[in-house]
Structures are given as structure tokens and as C-alpha cells.
């Protein structure tokens, strides 16, 4: 919580025009819409310190190593199709290429398990026990790092651009945005485009959103939370499904044991979403959106990445094999205040039991 209050960036986001402050919290309710989301990757200002062994190799480098351009022409079955076969039918193990992890022992995230182990990180503020093995996995892949990694740019850009990704938080029973021991948070998907300023780029508070009760019905979640010193924290829920397409593929991320930690005010919210990402879902969301071409632009070898994911996964052991099926992670998230046209509660509840939404409308 302390890290949110002390963050200067957060203070900037939460500077509120007086008019909005007077109106956004109404009848104990306030809504926020997601405008920025990306895997929390701690970067110092020195790449050589973060990744002293360098960055990991991508598909083009690995192809050249396996099938040198000055060598005999390979067959398509031995070369491209074998690599694509491994990509789409991934297996744990070793692919013969070194895999580099970030150094320094610092990462952002949550202490998800209440323990401080050797694999855990310290937060930038010194808090021990930070669980973020996804950072260990992708921290030295150039395509995942800011400011110009292909994933860093396009995954986040899609959050604003694509209505499919329109995740919203609806807070109810709110007495104060400073302190309230008991609030209810409902996650919905919105249906509408975002309200922006004249540039078309900056999302501004005060927009409105309808709730997607048909295609988005299965995305609805309810969380119990509290607000302390302007920071909302929630109890973990079983999972959150984040609809997240960045190249026109209806994919999603599944974050198990998901919890929120967000600094709030009347114009927006900023902080982190934490939990364990389902490994297979995480990998396939990336692959289905990007395929090998786009990953090549970020030097992301899917084959190497999957093997590393399986090595670093640290949550939800498979009941039969014992293999870890999820990986600890945190996402940096920003929301902007929005007025949510809240659906009729009776209709929402009737839609959570498998009833066809079109029949009940």
C-alpha cells in the first residue's frame, strides 16, 4: 500500500478537476474503466545491470543458428514446420539455447503466499517476499521491455483501442474514497468506446459505459474490499478473466487468486492486479495474437519462452503430475472514472446460471 501512496506517477494521474470531484461518487457508487494494463516489469535505467548476460535470442537468430543461410537448403518439414510444430505443441525441457533471467533481485508485485523464499524478490521500496516469477521469465526478453518492446507497446495499446478489452470496476457501498472498511467491487465488461480529449489519445473521466451482459456475462466477478488512506485492496477471488486481444484474436488471460491494490480518487485509479497467471492460457494468448512473425520483432522465441515458463511456474500444482500450472505475476493497471449504466441486479443474477441472455432480455 505504501508504494502506491508514495508514487509520484500516481499522484499525477490522480490530479482531479474540481468539477469531477463533486460528482463522480454518487449514491455510494463509482465506476472505473481500464485504460492501461501491462505485465509489471521492473526496469532500472541500466539494461546492462538488469540483464548483464544480454537479452534472449528470438526466432530469427535461432533459425540462423539452426539453419545457417550459407549452408545447404533445408526442407520445409525439417525447418519451418518443425519449429512451428514445437511452437504450437509446446513441451517442457531444454531447447539448447541459453535463457537469461533478470538480475538484481528487485521486482514489483504482491507477496501472494505470505512467505519469503529464495525465488522471491524485494519490492523497489524494500518489501520482501514479492512473488513475480513471470518477471523472471520475460524480464530479459527485449520485446517485453519498455519503452519500445513489441509487447510493451501493442498489448497495452490494445486496452484502449479494442472494445473487447473494456474491463470495468463498479464500486458500491462506498462511504468515502479515503477510508471505508467494506466496499463491494464488481467487474464487468463495457460496451462502448472511451471518452477522450480532443487529441483522441487521452482518456478523460466522466464518460459513460453500458454493461456487456451478453458476450461479457461470464466475465462478471464480485470482490470484497476495503479502502484505507485512499487505497483499495480486495480479498483474492478464485480467478479473473481479462479479455485481452491485441491483434483481432478473442483471447484472454486467466489470473487465479486475483486481488487488486489501487489508489483511488474521483478521476481514476492506479495500481496493480496480482495473482497467478494460468501458464497455458498465458502462452496461448501471446501466441494466438502474435504468431511467430510478430514475436520475431521482439526477439521472442516461443519455444524457449514456454520451456522457461514451465521452469519458473510456481502455483497451482497439477493434482496428478505435481507440475506447476500457474505463475505468479502482477500487472500495472490504470483506470479512469466512468459512469456505468449499472444493470438490473435481478437480470444479472439470472444470467449467471447458464440461461441464454437473449432469452432473458
Amino acid at each position, binding site marked *: 500500500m505504501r508504494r502506491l501512496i508514495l508514487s509520484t506517477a500516481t499522484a499525477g494521474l490522480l490530479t482531479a478537476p474540481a468539477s469531477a470531484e463533486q460528482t463522480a461518487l454518487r449514491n455510494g457508487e463509482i465506476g472505473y474503466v481500464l485504460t492501461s494494463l501491462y505485465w509489471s516489469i521492473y526496469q532500472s535505467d541500466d539494461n546492462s545491470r538488469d540483464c548483464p548476460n544480454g537479452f534472449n535470442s528470438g526466432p530469427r537468430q535461432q*533459425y540462423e543458428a539452426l539453419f545457417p543461410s550459407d549452408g545447404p537448403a*533445408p526442407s520445409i518439414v525439417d525447418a519451418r514446420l518443425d519449429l512451428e*510444430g514445437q511452437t504450437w505443441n509446446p513441451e517442457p525441457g531444454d531447447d539448447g539455447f541459453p535463457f537469461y533471467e533478470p538480475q538484481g533481485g528487485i521486482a514489483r508485485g504482491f507477496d501472494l503466499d505470505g512467505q519469503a523464499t529464495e525465488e522471491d524478490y524485494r519490492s523497489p521500496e524494500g518489501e520482501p517476499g514479492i512473488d513475480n516469477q513471470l518477471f523472471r521469465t520475460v524480464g530479459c526478453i527485449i520485446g517485453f521491455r519498455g519503452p519500445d518492446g513489441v509487447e510493451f507497446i501493442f498489448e497495452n495499446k490494445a486496452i484502449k483501442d479494442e*472494445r473487447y478489452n473494456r474491463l470495468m470496476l463498479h464500486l458500491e457501498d462506498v462511504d468515502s474514497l479515503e477510508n471505508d472498511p467494506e466496499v463491494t467491487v464488481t467487474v464487468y465488461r463495457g*460496451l462502448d468506446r472511451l471518452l477522450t480529449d480532443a487529441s483522441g489519445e487521452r482518456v478523460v473521466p466522466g464518460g459513460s459505459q453500458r454493461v456487456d451482459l*451478453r458476450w461479457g456475462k*461470464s466475465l462478471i466477478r464480485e470482490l470484497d474490499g476495503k479502502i484505507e488512506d485512499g487505497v483499495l485492496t480486495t480479498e483474492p477471488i478464485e480467478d479473473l478473466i481479462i479479455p485481452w486481444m491485441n491483434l483481432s484474436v*478473442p483471447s484472454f488471460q486467466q489470473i487465479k487468486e486475483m486481488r487488486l491494490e489501487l489508489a483511488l480518487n474521483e478521476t481514476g485509479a492506479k495500481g496493480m492486479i496480482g495473482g497467478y497467471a494460468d501458464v497455458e492460457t498465458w502462452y496461448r494468448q501471446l501466441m494466438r*495474437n502474435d504468431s511467430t512473425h510478430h514475436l520475431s520483432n521482439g526477439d521472442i522465441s516461443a519455444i524457449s519462452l514456454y520451456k522457461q515458463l514451465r521452469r519458473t511456474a510456481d502455483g497451482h500444482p497439477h493434482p496428478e503430475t505435481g507440475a506447476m500450472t500457474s505463475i505468479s505475476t502482477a500487472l500495472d493497471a490504470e483506470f479512469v472514472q466512468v459512469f456505468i449504466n449499472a444493470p438490473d441486479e435481478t437480470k444479472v443474477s439470472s444470467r449467471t446460471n447458464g440461461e441464454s441472455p437473449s432469452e432473458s432480455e
Partner: protein
Amino acid sequence: MILRSFIASLLVLLASASAQDVFDLYKDEPRPEGISVRMTELEGAVFTDEAGHTLYTWPQHLLRNGYSGEQKGRIECYDIVRTKTAGLMSPYPPGVLLPELDTRPSCTDLWRPVLVLEGAEPIGKWSIVEGQDGRRQWAYDEQPVYTSHLDQEPGDTTGGTKRRYGGEGAAARNPIGPPPRVPPAFRVMTTAHGGLVMTRDARSVYILNGESEGQIRCTGDCLDSWQPLTAPALARGDGLFSLVERSPGVRQWAFRGQPLYTYSLDSGEDWMVGSDVSGWSNVYLWETPEPPEEFTAQDTIAGQVLADAQGRTIYLYSCGDDSIDQLGCDHPTDPQVYRLAICGRGDPEVCQENWHYVPAKDDAESGSRAWRAVWIDPMTGRFSDAGVEGAMRVWAYRDRPVYTYFLDEKPGDVRGDATGEWRGGRNGLKAYWIRNAYFRGQ
């Protein structure tokens, strides 16, 4: 063979008998002798040769690393067997040996040029192009014209589609046909349901059930959500489009006599939002046949997909090779190494575990050519015959087997969508979207 020829002749006669209907929907433009127009199940009206086979062109496409296809007035498809990849699709380089070279066909083995008979002259949009091999070939809108070896009967469009599947696929061949007979204010887009009528600026148009000229029901508050498509003073009806007088001096477009509207809450990405409102429907110039009875429709988080009887999402495999000829690799008669790589890293048994054929009952019939029950050898992926050990009778769409995916656990899951190279468009699988609520072109 005799029976097949008889059926083909009969279908040609039937097509001729329904020619008047075709030209209610499509413009009857001048065309060479021997070139006809007929309705098809999936593509609307197409041009056909004397045998009734659909005609295709191969327009130039910009791929990631260069162009493929044919420029206007230029033939690129010859009787030459290509042996190496062209490197047109990143990230893989050119010069890689293509598969099954001992049996690899040439471009003209699969795409048969429609040759000009002696004495024939150009007419209308039809011109004559000459190839480097001396052949004289018909061109439509200056694009050389072919038939597909995959089309077996008149009305088949197995060789290609007008539907948009995004820009990541091969440089595909497209069926060609006359322009739809719609006033300038409208356009028609080929979709899973048929020829969707839209405004020229790509907004869906709708009709309200029970409305007709003199019986206008959408008035008052209804007009807050529904905008009548009014017509300028000089507009004239054409084909099935007419004009009705909504109120004195205000003329409104109508289709088959029913007034047309747009819907204020259409997002621009989902053309069917208005059809969720009771009583309102999209407008189609023609409609595709229904899938077989045992298939279902399921809601997902992105729209509606076709599913099997248990609600499992249906996937279609598509593939184009990386030769300069951009030959298909998604039909059971094509090389199977591409599909096997994606579905099971080359192992047909793994493929069957991951991507399941959709079994058809022994007596299953679809009632259409688009959907057929076919016999497949699952170990080779090729067509088989009834009674052959291991052969399965499975459903095929456009003569290609369809699949369900092992990671889809419940109805509405679409975890397999965009599996494979270039988001499934180049060598992979995509869900069969009945209604895609969030992205264009499917």
C-alpha cells in the same frame, strides 16, 4: 462418370431456368459466349464456364515480404513446378525446399486457364490476355480467369471465397461474378449468412417485421434508435430495391417492399447489434444454407460460433504455401505436412488427440454442397472410402474436414481460435464465427 455428367447437365438446365432470379439480384452485363452466371450456396452469383465451373481470378496481394498474384493484364500462373519457398511471409527466409516434390503440381495443374476460342472478341469487362507460353486467356476486369481443380460440380466454390479473412493469409484466388443489383447508396458483403446488405459507408441496414409501404410502425420514440434510410429526390429503385413514401415528400429505401433503417447503437464492428432487438432483422440479398441439423450455435465472449451437438466450437483449417504460386495446402488432396505440423508436430495420432474430426452419422445428409459428410483416413488426412479400415465419416465444409479442439472444455470456449502460423490464417485453424461481435472481416 455418366451419372455425374447427367447430373451436371441437369444442374446447368436448372441454372438456366433460374436465370431470371439471378438477374433480380445481380446485374446482367455483357459477357463472352460460353460464360454464364449462376447462383452458388456460399458466394452468391458467380461466372461459370461452359461446364458450369466457377471462375476465379488471382489478384495481386501485398504479403509481408513482397507481392504475389497477378497484376492486371499479366499472367503469372504457368505449367512450372516450383521447388523452393519464395520467402513472402516473415519470418522464414526463401530458398527452403517445398514438400513432396516428386508429386508437386504446377500452378496450371490446379488452376486451369479459361482459354479463348478462336474468333472470340473482347466484350464489356472481358478482355483477352496473352501468356509467355503463347496461350490466349480470358480476363475479367483485366485479371486472368481460371477454374479450380477442386470444383467438381456446377455451383461448387471449393477453390476460394469472396469472404474476408484478414490480411495474413496467402495470396488467394477469389471467385468472380457480376456486381450486385443494388442502388448506389448500398453495397453487399459476403458473410457466413449470405450477402449482407449495407449502406455504401458500411453500416448494416435493417427491416422491421410487418412493415410495408402504408404500414409504417416505427414512429415516435422508435425513431430515437432507428433512422429511416431516406432517399434523395433523384433516386430510383432497382432490382429488389424500391422507394416508399414514408410521409408526404419523404421517400425511404425499401427491400422487397419493406422499409430500410440503420440502428443508432451499431458499433461499426458488429453489424448485427440491431438484430438483437425484437422484431428487427438484417437484410440479405441471398442467404447461405443452414449447417447440418446436428450443429448448434454457441455464445462466446466475442460473439457466436458454430458448434457441434455437444456445444464444442467448430474450427476450419486453412493453408497456403510459400511458393511464388501460393498454392493451397488445406484440402485433403493437398500435402498434409503443414496441417500435421500445427495440429500435432507431425504426428497424426497427436493431431487426433488435439483436434478432433466431427463424426457424421451413417445416414447424415446436409442438404447442401457446402456441408458434406466425407470419408477420411485420420492417419493420412486424405479422403478415403466407406469400409476402409480406420476410415471415419466426418463433416466437411467446403470439402475440407472441420474440427473441435481438446482445450475447449465447455460450450462457448474458443481457445483454439487463431492457432497456427499468422494467427491461423496462413497455416492454422480459426473458429467458425457465425457472428463476430468485435472484429471485422471474419
